[in-house]
């Protein structure tokens, strides 16, 4: 569960998040949509501590990030637009690194779990490959498995398909869709409107650093109430 309370974030003079509050319950899947520059990525980055919030507070599984610090982020994993796999480690090496180094887990145990995860994302045969030998879609699936290897309760996806060739988007979305059926809390920043509509329990529409709409997907996609959302959807759908 994530609770954001009145969070503000500025870069120099530019206010990127302005009084953002919301609650995401255990197991919920949230899509975050909105025009570029509306603060979607910054919101995720603040939630996991890659950016420090200026004011307000965030509670993750009840722990305040202001008070608990790093400990609050332990149950959260993140997938980036640019994958950020470790190029000097094999696929399996990428998965087992953090559980062993950070959690001091038994190597054998972690390997077993990681191999199961690779099977889940359909990449068992690539476990000894290096990231440079993989396609973009395969890299992103490894990145998802790597985050899952830490057994998070919450997964954040920051435009997971935006840097992929169109024909590779599907395989990554399928993996995320399968995860959505499990009891993992997810927040996905995406431009894939079909995906957002199918998968989400709720959709956040962001504009100018605020969540201007927080509602079930039907309400946003079928009967958008504001003109701002309508014009955004028209623009984005005409591109696809």
């Amino acid at each position, binding site marked *: 569960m994530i609770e954001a309370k009145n969070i503000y974030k500025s870069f120099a003079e530019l206010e990127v998040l302005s009084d953002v509050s919301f609650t995401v319950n255990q197991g919920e899947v949230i899509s975050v949509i909105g025009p570029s520059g509306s603060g979607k990525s910054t919101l995720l980055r603040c939630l*996991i*501590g*890659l950016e420090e919030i200026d004011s307000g507070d965030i509670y993750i599984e009840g722990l305040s990030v202001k008070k608990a610090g*790093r400990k609050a*982020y*332990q149950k*959260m*994993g*993140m997938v*980036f637009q*640019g*994958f*950020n*796999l*470790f*190029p*000097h480690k094999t696929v399996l090496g990428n998965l087992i*690194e*953090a559980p062993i*180094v*950070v*959690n001091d887990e038994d190597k054998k145990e972690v390997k077993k779990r990681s191999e199961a995860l690779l099977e889940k994302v359909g990449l068992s045969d690539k476990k000894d490959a*290096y*990231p*440079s030998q993989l396609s973009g879609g395969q890299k992103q699936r490894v990145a998802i498995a*790597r*985050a899952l290897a*830490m057994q998070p309760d919450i997964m954040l996806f920051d435009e997971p398909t935006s840097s992929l060739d169109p024909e590779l988007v599907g395989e990554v979305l399928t993996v995320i869709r399968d995860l959505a059926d499990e009891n993992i809390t997810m927040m996905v920043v995406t431009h894939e409107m079909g995906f957002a509509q199918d998968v989400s329990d709720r959709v956040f529409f962001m504009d100018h650093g605020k969540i201007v709409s927080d509602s079930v997907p039907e309400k946003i996609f079928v009967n958008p109430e504001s003109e701002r959302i309508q014009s955004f959807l028209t623009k984005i759908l005409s591109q696809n």
Partner: protein
Amino acid sequence: MDYIINVSGYILEGSVVTFQLYLITALFSVLLGIAGALGKISKIPLLNSFLAFYTWVFRGTPLLLQLFFAYYGLPVLGITLEPFPAAALTFTINYGAYFTEIFRGGIESIDNGQYEAAQVLGMNYRQTMSRIIIPQTVKRVLPATSNEAINLVKDSALVAVIGLGDLLRAAKVAVTRDFSIIPFIIAAVFYLVISSVIVNIFRRLENKYSVYE
């Protein structure tokens, strides 16, 4: 032929000093370089300025001057060093300055996404540097480090000027003593052999690291 073997043996004795100096300098200057690079990328202003001054001075003045300073200059200030410690200290500090810059550049060339990935996986600074950043830096700095490693072989000959009995000095003594040019040729062959071995070691290392990217 006997003469060549005799002189080679004599020069080989001198090269013991060269090897000792080489190994000590290589080990400590690389360690100094790693520490210096981590200091340079740190956000401690005083440390940054100190290291900037350090690399500016030691990369900006001749190694020979630094060697004279340590051996002939410091005694004026009341600090007297034997030739070998003076040479080892000067070489370590001098090469440490070059390695500081090489390693700093290498570390800074690693994409910021690597730090972010490590952070969201829960790694702390030490784990991130030792497990993720430095291993990738090693690969990138190998070519530049290889250059320095070969330079060091040749620079080590400078110690002859402070009276240290190294490979070159042994050859020079033999030339003067025997009035023959052969000792110089033998010395050149020795240097070439050492350099080739080092080039070879680095080639193997580069091959080892070429499995990724």
